[in-house]
């Protein structure tokens, strides 16, 4: 379990991480979502003691990271897969981690197999690795100590679709076995497919957090009926706020159940009733629109 309490980081007058608090729970994959420059990496560096917080606390299973006697056995960390000496082979980098943690030498080939790096690949120097191979090696370094917590910064970066699928399955199994996974991404879709809980951050602040199902629910309901005017009137009379969508449907700020009941009371036949998708996406796009220099999200 990772507990983050009122964590802040200031560089002079600039606040990069602004009073964030959340918990990443065992058995769940927590997605740390935000546009580039939102403060994700700085937050993660603070979690593992590489950056000193200006204020606030991070504990991992009740202890500060820097107080862990042999952190590699408890927390697997991958912050930047490219941050390795280009002149070492992948196997050598993994061996250094294995020796530092005091693990048996057999863990090296086992872990290489787990991340699907072949014998030949592992004996090549990391300088010649593709980003995807570096990510696999980084995951291997994080996993070799058999930790119960994983902290991964943009782990899917540079992976091909099959690699992303592999990573998703790996982390899913890991969480199902009781592990805690915190991973960051600047891509909403990536987080949506893998995370159980989502923490969305923009300009150093948490703008939304909760389970994925909760967050999707806040997106409202898309509803359509044969008689749209009557539907709109009925919803307004029940005190619901609606907005018209481009395709003619209505979006109501309520659960599909509530909207359905209102329609039945008014004797209206519905042609469409569903949870509005892209609630997260809208939120995320708003966030990126504010934070991106282009002023408009891609």
């Amino acid at each position, binding site marked *: 379990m990772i507990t983050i309490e009122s964590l802040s980081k200031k560089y002079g007058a600039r606040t990069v991480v602004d009073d964030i608090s959340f918990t990443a729970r065992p058995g769940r994959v927590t997605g740390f979502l935000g546009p580039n420059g939102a403060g994700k990496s700085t937050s993660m560096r603070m979690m593992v003691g590489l*950056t000193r917080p200006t204020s606030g606390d991070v504990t991992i299973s009740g202890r500060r*990271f820097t107080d*862990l006697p042999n952190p590699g056995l408890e927390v697997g960390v991958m912050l930047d897969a*490219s941050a390795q000496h280009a002149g070492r082979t992948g196997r050598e980098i993994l061996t250094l981690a294995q020796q*530092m943690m005091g693990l048996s030498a057999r863990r090296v080939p086992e872990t290489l*197999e787990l991340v699907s790096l072949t014998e030949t690949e592992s004996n090549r120097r990391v300088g010649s690795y593709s980003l995807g191979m570096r990510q696999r090696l980084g995951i291997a370094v994080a996993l070799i100590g*058999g930790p119960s917590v994983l902290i991964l910064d943009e782990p899917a970066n540079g992976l091909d679709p099959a690699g992303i699928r592999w990573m998703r399955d790996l982390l899913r199994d890991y969480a199902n076995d009781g592990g805690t996974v915190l991973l960051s991404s600047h891509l909403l879709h990536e987080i949506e497919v893998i995370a159980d809980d989502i923490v969305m951050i923009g300009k150093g602040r948490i703008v939304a957090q909760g389970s994925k199902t909760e967050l999707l629910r806040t997106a409202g309901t898309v509803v359509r009926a044969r008689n749209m005017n009557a539907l709109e009137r009925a919803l307004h009379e029940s005190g619901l706020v609606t907005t018209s969508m481009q395709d003619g449907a209505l979006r109501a700020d309520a659960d599909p159940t509530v909207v359905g009941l209102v329609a039945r009371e008014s004797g209206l036949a519905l042609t469409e009733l569903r949870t509005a998708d892209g609630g997260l996406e809208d939120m995320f796009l708003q966030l990126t629109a504010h934070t991106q220099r282009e002023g408009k999200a891609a």
Partner: protein
Amino acid sequence: MTTIVLDRGLEQHAAVHHVPLSRVTRVELRKMFDTRSGFWLMASIVIAALLSTVATILFAPDAELTYYTFAKAIGFPMTVILPMIAVLSITGEWSQRSGLTTFTLVPRRNRVILAKVIASVTVGVASMLFALVTGVVGNLVGTAIAGADLVWDVSFAHGVNIVLGSLLCLLTGTMLGVLFRSSPVALVAYFVYSLLLPTVSGLLASNQERFRDLRPWVDLNYAQSALFEGSLTGEQWAHVAVAATTWVVLPALVGLRRVMKSEVK
């Protein structure tokens, strides 16, 4: 497969001990050899020692074919290579960014730095012993070829002093690495320190009466050179101690403080 990984983790939670310094040191020592550049840097010690020996046999006048001549010829390249090894061992963590992994596996950064110092000194001592032994072989072979008399003009104490002098060069490299955390800056700083400063200091000493008396206390290169020449008087030891504290120990402590507080990106 993931199940295996997790199970291992649970086993180890029960008895987790601090990563012992000996283990960190062993890993740091391994890191000095396991890249192509690191390997050749180490190999250059052997190559330089052999080349200097051959050059001494070929070019030194017969009368000067003594052990000291060999020791000096082989010792000089060591005072260049050893500090480079010490610098790169420290700065690689920042220049190559491997510190991101190293300092998450061992968050107590002073332990990592201490392990690196021990590893560098180990390499330094081994290199100097190798150099001194190569000198012995060189002296035997050289005098045999030239038909000159064998002269062993380096006492055991002198030999120890030569090793100490070289280690001081190496530790200067460590200090610069810790202080600057950047390979090019620290390497340039070392050459400014070892090649440029002695000239400036010498000029000052020959023009300024007052500096001449002060020089052995403030000029580490100067104070240190006595170590290579033979046995030292009590005052000369004091010179070395004062100059080394000022130029190696204090800046290293300042650097260490910055290493502890700095952000590893």
